[in-house]
């Protein structure tokens, strides 16, 4: 494991960007230089981060998942349906399992549409994005659903390690699981192979349709976990949220160095990508910068970070 970790970090030059950005804010943003801020950043990036871990697999196959934003809301609404006192009021474990199952089903449908009907991932998941949003609104009747299950809320906001929110732990654990899945299992190996050359993979006797579907299912499960982290933080779900989250998720993956054309992926990169976005947001907010300027600065910093990453990558490979 540590070998993988080391070699991955070496490949994540964008890590340097994170450090630089962090140091900048330590100097210029009031009160930024506290450990709690760092923890906040990890906590706040946890749900996007966890979803981005799953999206890394999809992107590794050369696909894309636009449904991850509203799909998250849909899964969270279903968590509410399973667990809320006003609805089914199931035991916590059952509710969690069913929620993950909802995510898996969303992924399964995406996967089937893409693998077996041959729809382009962009279209299949765009359609799912609309359907998930519609269903979230239909099921919740456009009302906030509250999930006042204390165990549920503990999942994200409890502190198994004092001072460290469980969401952070879950994010770390899921990152490790994702790294193992990507580097050490057939799922990851085949995802990369498909992204590299789908036809050659098929002609090697790999059941490409099956494995692609599995990848979308996995992404769906990560999405559902993101939904749990998101809704457990507040103990309620607003069914209209989630629109546009997919871009944050994909951005985290791509900033982390995973190529949208498939074949290469980097889990640590995805984690760093999610952290960069959240650090920027937090730091700029704490500097009290107006939101419109935050947008401009974030855009430019992302450009520079990825550019530096590309330059260093190239230099390394030609030396």
């Amino acid at each position, binding site marked *: 494991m540590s070998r993988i970790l080391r070699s991955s970090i070496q490949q994540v030059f964008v890590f340097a960007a994170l450090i630089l950005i962090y140091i900048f804010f330590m100097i210029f*943003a*009031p*009160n*930024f230089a*506290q450990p*709690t*801020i760092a923890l*906040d950043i990890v*906590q*706040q990036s946890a*749900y996007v981060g966890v979803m981005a871990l799953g999206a890394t697999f999809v992107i590794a196959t050369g696909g894309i998942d636009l449904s991850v934003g509203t799909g998250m809301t849909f899964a969270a609404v279903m968590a509410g349906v399973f667990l809320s006192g006003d609805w089914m009021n199931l035991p916590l474990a059952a509710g969690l399992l069913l929620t993950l199952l909802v995510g898996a089903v969303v992924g399964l449908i995406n996967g089937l549409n893409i693998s077996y009907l041959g729809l382009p991932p962009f279209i299949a998941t765009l359609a799912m994005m609309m359907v998930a949003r519609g269903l979230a*609104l239909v099921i919740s009747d*456009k*009302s*906030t659903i*509250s999930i006042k299950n204390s165990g549920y809320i503990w999942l994200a*906001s409890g502190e198994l390690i004092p001072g460290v*929110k469980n969401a952070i732990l879950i994010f770390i654990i899921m990152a490790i699981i994702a790294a193992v899945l990507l580097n050490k299992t057939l799922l990851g190996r085949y995802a990369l192979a498909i992204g590299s050359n789908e036809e050659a993979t098929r002609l090697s006797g790999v059941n490409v349709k099956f494995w692609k579907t599995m990848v979308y299912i996995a992404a769906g499960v990560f999405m559902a976990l993101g939904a749990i982290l*998101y809704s457990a*933080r*507040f103990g*309620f779900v*607003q*069914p*209209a*949220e989630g*629109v546009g989250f997919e871009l944050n998720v994909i951005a985290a993956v791509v900033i982390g160095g995973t190529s949208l054309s498939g074949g290469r992926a980097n889990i640590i990169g995805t984690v760093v990508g999610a952290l960069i976005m959240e650090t920027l*947001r*937090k730091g700029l*907010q*704490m*500097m*009290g910068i*107006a*939101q419109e300027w935050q947008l401009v600065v974030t855009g430019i910093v992302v450009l520079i970070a990825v550019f530096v990453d590309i330059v260093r990558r190239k230099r390394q490979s030609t030396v």
Partner: protein
Amino acid sequence: DETTNEPAPAETTAAAPETTAAETETTPAETEPTDSEPAEAGDVPKGNGETIYLVSKGFQHRFWQAVKEGAEQAGQEYNYTIEFVGPQDETKVTEQLDMLKTALDSQPAAIGLAALDSGAAESLLTEIQAANIPIIAFDSGVDSDIPLTTVSTDNTAAAAEAAKHMAELIGNTGTVGLICHDQTSATGKQRCDGFQDWMAENAPDITVLEPQVAGEVGLAANTAKSMIQANPDLVGIYGTNEAAATGAIQGANESGKEGLTVVGFDSGKTQLEAIRNGSQAGAVTQSPVLMGYETVVAAIKAINGQELPETIDSGFAWYDASNIDDPEIAGNLYE
């Protein structure tokens, strides 16, 4: 909201006899619409199931659902069919105008419009007028003579009301943060500006931070947290809608900040809970149900060629743990 004049006196609206001006928060802004039924039964003729088409500012927020409920209540009473639509969020002006166009295309008996942008609809309104379809503005006004009346809440005054209570609650001194749910729509701006303006004029010892924008709970919570962390002397946060206020409370909880005064706007399940359990000081509510009801009644009158006042105030009210269950208040709160 272009009709930011003082709320119209109650007697100008036959439809809502009990509606009073909202200057004092102790006076409930309005009552259950059903209460007003007898007073107007004679005035308002019944229809034959014709359609009244309401184009709102959003379809998926409970506020608009409450407006819709009020509208449908009036529709049922007077035998009109209500179509109620709205864009995805309050920045989607063009989407709203396309909906207005669709409303015109489907030739309803009357149209109600809660314009996202007061100037944008001009040309469509002219087309609607040319088609002889009466149009009523609601929630916020329109820069045009075409709407026969405007049924609205004065958002600026309501925000000032929130500011007044905030100042009182924090003892007229300290640093206060603002989380605005939207920075470009008329409503969003008025709720933000009204608060800032009142503070600037009436509370010289209160520092108001640069407003931050966050339209959804997660973002609002993160923003509130950043505000609290960057400003240890922060004593209060005002959020301009349910998501912003709820986010502020969550941010305070997560950052371990004690004694922060959170003031909100509108209602919704999470805000009501927070006010009941004391984590939120209170909020300003509009009267969405009444607004919907009044809009439809005004439309019916317009269909029948009856006189309408220039504005109809649907009012607003401050509520907190003490009066949250009062019937006059509770009728305007939604989960």
